């Protein structure tokens, strides 16, 4: 029988030489396995006198525990060395190199429209869609612009050969929407509009507006100011002051021009607001009783406000676009700067 001390010494030396999992396996077999050294020493125990058995057993178990601990320690060290080696061998990578170049983009109008639509949705407004080709009735008569009215001078209209028109304002959808929803209602409807005018840096014959209407028994001028202020504060992401001025539009009474405090200089005066501190942004007003009546709503019972916001203008302000013509140019290099949000 081998001396236990020697056995331990031998195991220690052997373990130190082991570098892989396989070696650890055979080491286990050799010392701790069924036919291993510890087992065979224990087998000798029955030959010892009874009074020595107890202390011998204790010694062997202690040696066994020592070997187990050594083995576990060696196992841990090998795993650690392996990981360390893996970590050390990792390549140093330059992550300042750009990843795949993304060039997808939404149109600036789409981005601004989404923003405004979301704000109104959050305030409980329904969102509707409208046509681009409208009847003269919907575009003019139904919004209180009868034939021969000088207001038809104010907007040059594209007429089609079947007598329809390319809608000159989103208001052309008012009648259909009032008939669809009835009162009360809270709706916005974005759309593309057309005016027969020559192109220049600030005039387009094809442009976007968003129109909103709110009708109920008590909807007031004070409510109009409130909703416009809330919406614009959200659009511009900062506190916006609004003011109303008289403005004449046949479909509203009273009609207003809504000015906003210049979001670029906070009303102090800058190039954008022509040093006045205010920017004229959108016509609005209380829906004309005739318009309500034509939409099947009783103006004695219901009242409401409407507004039309120039989207192309808003998109230009948002992205600091100086030429309105860019929007319909199809110039991807320029337009793609809008990205997707």
């Amino acid at each position, binding site marked *: 029988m081998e001396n236990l001390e020697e056995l331990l010494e031998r195991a220690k030396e052997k373990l130190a030489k082991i570098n892989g999992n396989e070696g650890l396996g055979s080491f286990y077999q050799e010392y701790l396995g069924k036919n291993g050294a510890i087992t065979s020493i224990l087998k000798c125990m029955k030959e010892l006198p009874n009074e020595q058995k107890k202390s011998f057993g204790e010694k062997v178990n202690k040696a066994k525990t020592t070997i187990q601990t050594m083995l576990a320690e060696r196992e841990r060290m090998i795993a650690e060395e392996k990981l360390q080696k893996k970590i050390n061998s990792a390549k140093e990578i330059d992550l300042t190199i750009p990843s795949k170049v993304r060039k997808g983009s939404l149109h600036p109008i789409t981005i601004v429209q*989404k923003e405004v639509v979301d704000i109104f949705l959050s305030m409980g407004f329904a969102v509707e869609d409208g046509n681009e*080709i409208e009847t003269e009735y919907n575009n003019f008569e139904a919004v209180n612009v009868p034939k021969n009215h000088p207001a038809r001078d104010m907007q040059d209209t*594209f007429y*089609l050969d079947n007598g329809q028109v390319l809608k000159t304002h989103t208001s052309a959808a008012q009648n259909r929407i009032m008939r669809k929803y009835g009162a009360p209602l809270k709706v916005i409807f974005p759309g593309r509009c057309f005016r027969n005018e020559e192109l220049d840096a600030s005039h387009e014959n094809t442009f976007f507006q968003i129109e909103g209407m709110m009708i109920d028994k008590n909807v007031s001028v004070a*409510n109009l100011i*409130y909703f416009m202020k809330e919406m614009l504060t959200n659009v511009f992401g900062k506190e916006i002051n609004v003011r109303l001025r*008289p403005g*004449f539009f046949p479909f509203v009474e009273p009609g207003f021009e809504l000015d906003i405090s210049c979001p670029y200089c906070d009303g102090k005066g800058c190039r954008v607001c022509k040093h006045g501190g205010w920017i004229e942004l959108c016509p609005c007003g*209380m829906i004309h009783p005739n318009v309500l009546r034509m939409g099947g709503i009783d103006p004695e019972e219901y009242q409401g406000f409407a507004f039309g916001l120039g989207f192309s203008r808003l998109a230009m302000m948002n992205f600091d676009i100086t030429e309105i013509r860019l929007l*319909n140019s199809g110039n991807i290099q320029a337009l793609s700067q809008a990205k997707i949000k």
Partner: protein
Amino acid sequence: MIVSINWIKDFVNLDGVDIEKLISKFTMSVAEVEGIEYKGRNLSGVVTAKILSVDPVENSKKLHLLKVDCGTEILQIVCGAPNVRVGMVTALAKIGAKLGDITISKAKLAGIESYGMCCGGDEIGISDDHSGLVELDENTPIGVDIKSVLDIEDILFEVDNKSLTNRPDLWGIYGIAREISALTGRPLKTLNLADKKDFEGKEKVDVVVKSSSCNRYTSAKMENITRKSSDLNMQIRLFYCGMRGINLLADVTNYVMLELGQPMHAFDGEKVKSIQVYDLDDDRQFVTLDGTTRNLKKGHMVISCNNTPVALAGIMGGENSEITEDTTSVLIESANFDAYKVRTTAISLGMRTEASARYEKSLDPELTMTALLRLVYLVKSQDKNARICSSICDIYNKHYPKLEIELSKEYVDRFVGIKIDEKTILDILTSLSFKVLENKNGVYKFEVPSFRATKDINGKADLVEEITRIYGYDNITPQSIVQPVKPALLDKAVALEYDVKYALASRFDLNETHSYIWYDYESNKTLGINPQSVIRCINSLNKDNDKIRSTMIPSLLKVIADNKGVYNNFGTFEIGRVVKQMRDDNLADETKSLGLLLYRKTASEESVLFEVKEIIDYIFEYVLKMNLTLELSTHTNDYCHPKNYYKIFANNVEVGNLFEITPRVSDKIEENCVVAGFEVNFSKICEQQQTKTVFEKISKYPTTKLDFNFIIPQGKLYKDIISIAKSIDTQLNYKVNLLDIYENANGQKSYTLHYEVNSLDRTLTTEDIDLFHEAVISKFEQNGIALKL
């Protein structure tokens, strides 16, 4: 329209009023002011002076040497004006005087020293006349500041005409003064008018009105008019307000028009002694007083004398009856014509005058009498010798009905959203000349003044506007609303539209662009395509770009062609409107259409078509959640490739097509490039049901994987193979997909199909798997498809 504060001051006392604040209040309460101009502020050192002597200057034909008395001394002045004469009182800019940017200093002209400059009207800013010196009345004191003699100092503000479209009453200074009186709370002075008594007992002007478009015709005659030009201060006002002094009668008619908004006309009394107003019953030529020959049409309304037209009613007088230097008697017209008639006539003749611009706003017919009396008063005050020589002829055929409107305080409060007290309501409306007829416990009845009743004011809402604008919109506190809370409805088309666009841009790196609703003629011509159009625009800006599109693809091809120089590989899309057909009622059947094109400078047709396929698969599966099928088809258009043209079905409803652009077109963009894409009817897609996702049970027992190689007969499409592969006769759960496609040198294709088989309630046995294996093979054999050995 330009407003002179001096003129306003004739009617409202503005002492102590901050004019700039007043003007900004005007913008906030009445109409938009586009600009303010300060007149005479940059003029100083100009005094009245008398010319004592006029002597020729040696070696100069034009120049004269003057001795001028400027009150404190006699100055030597060299002057080039032709109208110099001894005794003339004029304006002298002394040394150090400032005329705008110019400072007068001692100067040498033709070798002679000049100690100042005698001024013409343009030099002191009161006219554009440069023909001679300003001629002041001989009784003018000498040596006083010119500004104390002439109303050179003034503040002008220009009101945006568009914002006055609906306010005929604001097309005259007096109307503006009325607003300013309401804004400042100061009384409006009455106009000085001729006394009606002065006309009594005289012979009436012979006027016959036959046209139904002449609402009122008021007329009188004056004679013995000796003065030729109007007062300089009147001329200055006319000039400041955009007109110019011509002669006494022309100036006074213009002055009354600017002041009251009522166009006036003065006929030479020797040439026009009677008046007939009628609509022409034939076409004829007529020379207006600007010397232009006009081709009048049947139906145009004219003023005639003895059947010879002398004026185009409401627009312009005729050359044949114009006031001249020799005119001493005058027939005055103060009339009210129908707005629509004047407007259509003016448009048809391509004329727009100060008069027609006012008439087309629907003027108050009550105004004609006031304007006539005002004009006579002004002529008499300018020319003491002028005499009234007729009684007033006033033919008043069409009155506007008196307008009375009931309004309650409760309505005002509800409409505005704040409480405005009764006194404020009544005070404001009274200050704007509305008459309170009744007031019963907060329910009022108002009479609308005639000058607001022609079209502007119709009902309660109009009165609320009057109250609130003067009250001040700034005084209305914004207020939220109390309403039942309901979820907002987002139109499905609007929601899907954004989601699709977002996916295309973010996932597939595509660029959204916008194009016009009409075809671009030049682009289509360059590409050699002639796409269908069923409706056209009759007044397009460019006469060639008049066809409304029936497909998005030509617009997108233009974007591709315009950008291919910048990018070798890119794609663009747009959701726009197209008209493919007319409806039975002849209205355009407009639909929303999603068009998409990919451009690859060098790529195989197959790879590009598969890129398109990947996009549409993704859109249908993940965004639209609809079942997509493609069906090989044919077409008749001239931009798609004849091969590989597929119809697109959403839930078995045809919604569009997927295609490659024919090289006949794409080679014109870039030789050997590949352009492919699809177009779908987005309106129709939005009508389709979206698939509801239902979770399937996932087996907890092991899954067995089996691969099969089948030889695919020529002409069989994948969709046929996969439908066989999915119809195996078995009780087991299985999924199948295409793992690989192999094509040998002879063009024979084989597919590797990958099956995953399991059961929801047990582990599969070898026998189960063998049976499944056999079932797959026999299903394919039944369809004449063999395993590849």
